């Protein structure tokens, strides 16, 4: 579904990605972890072309992300993305946030879009918050709205960049539960997270990044029981110890 081949990316002189190769199969959930600054956000933003790459190739469902002739907006519409800081539109209600791209990208009528948005907000447990503005919602609620917003495009795959890192601890689970339900529904997911519990329950495979390289790409059981690199081992002790 998602194929990354030998991705290189620099910002000025800093090389952020040094030859990353990975794939996410249809219906698979892959967790990406690694220390801060290792390039996880950059890697996941390459997948839908938010970050242009210097070298390598990326395809999503067979369509090249890097090809100049690809209609990037059309491709992005098929890939949902959820951000660490939610990035809901502050000048719109929850319902409007979820309906906006349906109306302007999928060209659904407002009534159609709103009906679909109501369904999705119900699915993430927010039926009572349709007309709330983002600043009236808790972090966990905002992140669930943003998941509904991504789902509103009926995506083929979902990208998550540390979806629970900005949340108070008591709100982490409500978001992880929504994500777990999505995974059970068969959604293809690439998830940057430090929630190793989520990885253990939901992921098929774990990628471990450090210094812009993918050091490990293993089935989760192997990753947790017996990581092959020393750095992954150290990282695991650190995140699992708290």
């Amino acid at each position, binding site marked *: 579904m998602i194929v990354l081949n030998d991705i290189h990316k620099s910002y000025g002189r800093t090389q952020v990605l040094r030859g990353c190769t990975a794939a996410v199969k249809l219906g698979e959930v892959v967790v990406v972890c690694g220390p801060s600054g290792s390039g996880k956000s950059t890697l996941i933003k390459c997948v*839908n072309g938010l970050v242009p790459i210097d070298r390598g190739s990326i395809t999503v469902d067979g369509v090249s992300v890097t090809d100049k002739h690809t209609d990037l907006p059309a491709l992005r519409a098929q*890939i949902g993305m959820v*951000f660490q*800081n939610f*990035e809901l*539109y502050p000048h719109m209600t929850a319902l409007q946030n979820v309906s906006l791209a349906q109306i302007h*990208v999928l060209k659904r009528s407002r009534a159609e879009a709103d009906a679909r948005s109501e369904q999705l907000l119900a699915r993430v447990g927010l039926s009572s918050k349709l007309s709330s503005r983002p600043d009236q919602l808790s972090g966990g609620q905002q992140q669930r709205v943003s998941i509904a*917003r991504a789902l509103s495009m009926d995506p083929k795959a979902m990208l998550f960049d540390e979806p629970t890192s900005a949340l108070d601890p008591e709100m982490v689970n409500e978001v992880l539960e929504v994500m777990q339900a999505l995974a059970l529904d068969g959604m293809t997911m690439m998830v940057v997270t430090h929630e190793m519990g989520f990885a253990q329950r939901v992921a098929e495979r774990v990628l471990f990044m450090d210094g812009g390289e993918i050091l490990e790409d293993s089935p989760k059981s192997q990753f947790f029981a017996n990581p092959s690199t020393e750095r992954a081992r150290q990282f695991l002790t650190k995140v699992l110890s708290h």
Partner: protein
Amino acid sequence: MNDFDWGVIARSWPFLAEGMALSALLVVVSTAGGILLGLGLALMRRSDHAFIAGPATVYVTVMRSVPLILVLFWFYFLVPLVIGRPVGALASALVAFVLFEAAFYCEIIRAGINSVRAGQTEAALATGMRRSQVMRLIIMPQGLRAMTPLLFNQVIIVFQDTSLVYVVALRDFMTTASVVASRDGRPTEMYTLVAVVYLAICFSLSKAIELYGKGRAR
């Protein structure tokens, strides 16, 4: 000097009103035209292409570093030389004001756009919107809130600047008042009037900005 004659205001009112009308016209045209052109310049300056962004940057930098009075002169004296026929004082003043103010409105609009977090653009692009849609639906509505007080401020500045049109022999409110002042020998009355009118207009505009800010805060 002890006896004031406030009747001078009433007697010269039609003349003063003409000056006021010209000031108002300049403010309205240069605000509307300046914002439109400024928006265009702001979008150009955001372009990734140097041949689009470059000229806009040069234009804005030049306009912001020369005094308005010079721009007024250029249009009044130079443009007729270039195109071979007179332009007329009012037309040249209107054009000069629009072109000059556009540079300032451009910077205000740019600041408003830049005040919106980059993550908002990423999130909107990620849903498949095109850049123009992101600008119209996500960035502008949020940026407008940040820029509105500055836009109001600029209107006040323009209003004060309209008095400069005397250099091309036009009579704005300030100029008509000083004509009456010297003609009738009533400087105290006339300049008091000018001060009061400027104060009233600038005060109500500032008040409007303040109320707008309060409305936003809720």
